[in-house]
């Protein structure tokens, strides 16, 4: 009898998340839950100023407090050659400030004490004298004639520019513009946001002199990269470092980089020979760790009167903060920004990018995003709407006209990526049908006659997920592949380990489903383990929606190796040759006598008790997977809104999402990812930003100012699907974790701009706060730029 794949928790089963059992019972095991004997506690003193020279640090007061064990300053770190550390983008970052502070919240000193209360008392007793310097809080200020040099620590740095970078075909693009009937332009700012996982960062470093082994419990999405980095920075042998990333309370890209707090706790543990715990508070996390976005975008689109896009010019001015610590493949200075316009058939495109140092926190991380893809797709879809408006074309029609057609794959994008699959028009049609597009346009017209402002916004995009093939993608030279290790026990139960690290994605559930699909072992019989570098095989970690495309593929491949060996065992047990047996889910059988068969569990038992002559016993293997290409999911998001012209408040009426992420392993988890992503998209469009006042103060360093939407105001989402399997992924899956965050914001913004159509307003920069919308509605002009902190 054939197994029912859904019943055993294989592909397509909306299996309940196994990890939730412990989470909802309060039995999760986070870094802060780990208690080691003799553990001390560390707290950080942060700079109150955005830019200042450190004149004097007096730590004597801290040592007067009973229970303070150690105070570390930049000077002490520098004496041990640990004043600075390398970033993921070939720059350097101060661990503790030595010469000057370069952003508000920068680490200046730390106190290690018997308990966290005393550590904080110790921090308060440290007196630091600063000489304030002029703060630089945006790219315009960074290149102003009187701008102070932020990175005077770097020998050849004479200005505040991090890089100039370009990609695309400048000649072809110029030609396209020369032939254009219409040139559409747009200027935007994608504000600084923060991944803001609910658990902040933290570590417990435990250096044992007797074994020379350093064990670090750490909030990291990429434990293996961290091990390599610690080995290089602390000059410790890699095999004497064990990184354990236990349960994570979310990551969203924030927990990829190496932060000074980790390094300080490690050094403190080495110096004191006791475990040292550092648990960052929420404000520390918001003001000092890896942010997202903060890019000014300028675009031009060359158009033919009939609606055909001939070419695109893009320019980005990106604000990287005080240190260039973006987490992204090293080759691409501004991430995968040039993945923009991949779903449209555009012959020519050119992108120039300039990065700037400012007195802001460093670390443009891939916040639920494949390295700046969020900005790219926002840019693309806002530009597309502006172009459709300029041509007087319907926004859906304009997209339809320019989509890459289903029979055009593989398709080379204007910036050189290779897309391989998709049904773009079908997704759009499903979305338009679901929202009732034509009816809404009528409704909108009727409402306008009564003074009500309704709008509809569309966002369609394909994005590159699953970095990536080793030809193109590496971080500091380490290629971005992943691996999986599967051990099937004699009773047919199994343990699977990967180098990825779940932080809410549900790997413990879905990886087991892939094994179930490949081997017919019920998902519940497979335990999944990740996050311990002493036990897990190598992997680049989980971010940028790369787990399923890369580690997930490795899980498939290792399962297939197990199946191949099992086949030999089955042939031995069935006493036929390998060529004479066939596989159905969970069972090998003799082709000519299908009733004669052995289950995978029987093969497993035989692997430990009755292997054919010459075969190595046991049933385990590993697989490294280097993906041949990125995966290209497609999405169509449509939002309808009503704007209150007297307050500028806009309410979401409906949101329709059509996602094509190929084969869905666990549809429930996929839907959860989409809803979570749309919630973040709504947040960025509606309320969320980290900005800075003229004095360099970070506004957005706490949850009263940096707003996370709650269930109360988050709109409902109507989800639909189209399935175009990935042609190169072993099970046809594509990434999905970030799609809605990436594509969603433009749908909301486009909807509000659509509601104001006819007023002359082309753009309001995110977040579309009521006062900004009100200004646009009443003054009939664009409201652009980083949201300034207005002061009287």
């Amino acid at each position, binding site marked *: 009898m054939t197994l029912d794949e859904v019943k055993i928790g294989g592909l397509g089963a909306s299996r309940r998340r196994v990890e939730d059992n412990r989470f909802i019972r309060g039995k999760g095991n986070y870094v802060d839950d780990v208690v080691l004997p003799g553990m001390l506690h560390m707290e950080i003193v942060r*700079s109150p100023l955005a830019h200042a020279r450190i004149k004097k640090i007096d730590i004597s007061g801290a040592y007067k407090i009973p229970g303070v064990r150690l105070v570390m300053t930049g000077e002490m770190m520098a004496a041990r050659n640990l004043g600075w550390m390398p970033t993921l983008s070939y720059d350097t970052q101060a661990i503790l400030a030595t010469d000057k502070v370069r952003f508000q919240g920068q680490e200046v000193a730390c106190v290690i004490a018997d308990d966290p209360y005393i550590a904080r008392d110790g921090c308060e007793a440290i007196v630091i004298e600063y000489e304030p310097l002029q703060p630089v809080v945006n790219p315009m200020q960074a290149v102003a004639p009187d701008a102070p040099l932020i990175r005077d620590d770097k020998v050849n740095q004479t200005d505040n520019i991090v890089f100039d970078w370009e990609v695309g075909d400048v000649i072809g693009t110029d030609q396209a513009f020369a032939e254009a009937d219409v040139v559409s332009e747009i200027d935007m700012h994608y504000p600084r946001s923060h991944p803001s996982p609910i658990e902040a960062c933290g570590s417990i470093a435990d250096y044992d002199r007797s074994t020379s082994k350093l064990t670090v419990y750490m909030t990291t999405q990429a434990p293996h990269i961290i091990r390599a980095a610690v080995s290089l920075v602390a000059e410790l042998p890699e095999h004497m470092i064990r990184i354990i990333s236990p349960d994570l309370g979310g990551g969203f890209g924030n927990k990829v980089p190496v932060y000074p707090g980790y390094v300080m706790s490690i050094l403190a543990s080495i110096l004191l020979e006791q475990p040292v715990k550092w648990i960052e508070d929420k404000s520390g996390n918001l003001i000092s760790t890896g942010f997202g976005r903060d890019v000014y975008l300028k675009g031009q689109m060359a158009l033919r009167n009939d609606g055909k896009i001939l070419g695109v010019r893009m320019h980005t001015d990106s604000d990287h903060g005080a240190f260039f610590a973006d987490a992204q493949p090293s080759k691409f200075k501004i991430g995968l920004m040039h993945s923009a316009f991949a779903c449209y058939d555009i012959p020519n495109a050119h992108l120039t990018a300039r990065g700037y140092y400012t007195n802001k926190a460093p670390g443009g991380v891939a916040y639920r995003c494949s390295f700046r893809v969020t900005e790219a797709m926002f840019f693309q879809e806002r530009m597309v709407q502006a172009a459709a408006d300029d041509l007087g074309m319907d926004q859906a029609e304009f997209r339809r006209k320019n989509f890459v057609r289903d029979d055009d794959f593989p398709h080379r994008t204007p910036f050189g990526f290779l897309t391989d699959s998709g049904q773009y028009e079908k997704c759009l049609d499903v979305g338009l049908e679901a929202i009732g597009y034509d009816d809404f346009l009528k409704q909108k017209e009727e409402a306008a006659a009564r003074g009500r402002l309704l709008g509809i916004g569309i966002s369609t995009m394909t994005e590159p997920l699953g970095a990536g093939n080793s030809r193109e993608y590496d971080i500091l030279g380490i290629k971005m592949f992943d691996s999986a290790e599967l051990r099937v026990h004699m009773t047919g139960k199994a343990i699977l380990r990967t180098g990825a690290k779940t932080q809410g994605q549900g790997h413990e559930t879905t990886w087991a489903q892939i094994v179930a699909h490949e081997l017919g072992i019920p998902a519940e019989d497979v335990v999944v383990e990740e996050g311990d570098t002493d036990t897990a095989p190598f992997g680049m970690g989980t971010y940028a929606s790369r787990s399923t495309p890369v580690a997930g593929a490795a899980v498939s491949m290792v399962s297939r190796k197990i199946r191949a060996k099992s086949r030999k065992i089955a042939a031995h047990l069935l006493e036929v040759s390998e060529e004479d047996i066939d596989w159905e889910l969970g069972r090998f059988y003799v082709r000519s006598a299908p009733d004669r068969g052995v289950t995978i569990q029987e093969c497993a038992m035989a692997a430990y008790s009755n292997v054919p002559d010459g075969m190595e016993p046991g049933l385990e293997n590993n697989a490294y997977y280097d993906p041949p290409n990125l995966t290209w999911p497609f999405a169509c998001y449509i939002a309808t809104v009503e704007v209150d012209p007297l307050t500028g408040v806009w309410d979401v009426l409906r949101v329709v999402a059509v996602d094509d992420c190929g084969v869905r392993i666990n549809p429930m988890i996929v839907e959860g990812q989409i809803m979570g992503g749309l919630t973040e998209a709504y947040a960025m469009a509606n309320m969320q930003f980290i900005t800075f006042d003229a004095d360099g*103060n970070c506004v957005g360093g706490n949850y009263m100012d940096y707003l996370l939407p709650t269930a109360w105001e988050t709109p409902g989402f109507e989800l639909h699907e189209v399935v175009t399997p990935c042609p190169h992924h072993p099970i046809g899956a594509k990434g999905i974790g970030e799609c809605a965050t990436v594509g969603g914001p433009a749908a909301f913004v486009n909807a509000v701009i659509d509601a104001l159509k006819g007023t002359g307003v082309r753009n309001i920069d995110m977040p579309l706060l009521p006062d900004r919308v009100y200004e646009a*509605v009443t003054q009939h002009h664009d409201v652009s730029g980083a949201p300034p902190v207005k002061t009287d």
Partner: protein
Amino acid sequence: MKIANEFEVDQPIDDVWEFFDDIPQVAACLPGTTLTDEVEDDHYQGNVLISAGPVKLEFAGDAKILERNNADRSITVDANGAEKKGRGQAAMMLDADLNETATGTRVDVTMDLQLSGAAAQYGRGLVKDVTAVLMDDFAANMQNRLVAIAAGLDPNQVDAVKPASGFSIALRAARTALARVFRRFFMPYNPELV
């Protein structure tokens, strides 16, 4: 944060000038201030305690007369300090400009306050609300002290009184009404919403 105040006292400009020349006298107008040391001429050290409900912040720092223009009767004081437990930094530039009028002296006081650190960052302007009131009190106290001196009273006996601002309220009412008319003119009129 810039806060500007102007007031008039019916005292000769020379007498008012004398008041501003005396930093301890001026400092006494800022609630919660104690001067602890005179480092040198025109350079003092002291503390400012900001207390509002449960919140207490104590800044320790310096005040220096940066510029004194006897001819124009203007003075610039630069004060800055650090919160004693590292919760922030404050810097204030105070400009006082005296002008002779028919009946006495008009005083223009401009204060430019820069707050940094946790004090400025947290609590959505909590500290700013408090300091704005403090600065207003500062200006009002200067006025009161000058009036007291003019009346021959001991300035240390004068209580702080906040001046009424009836004029500006009427002005704002007019402006809001105007804005409403403006809005009607340019907006799709919707009686349900107005």
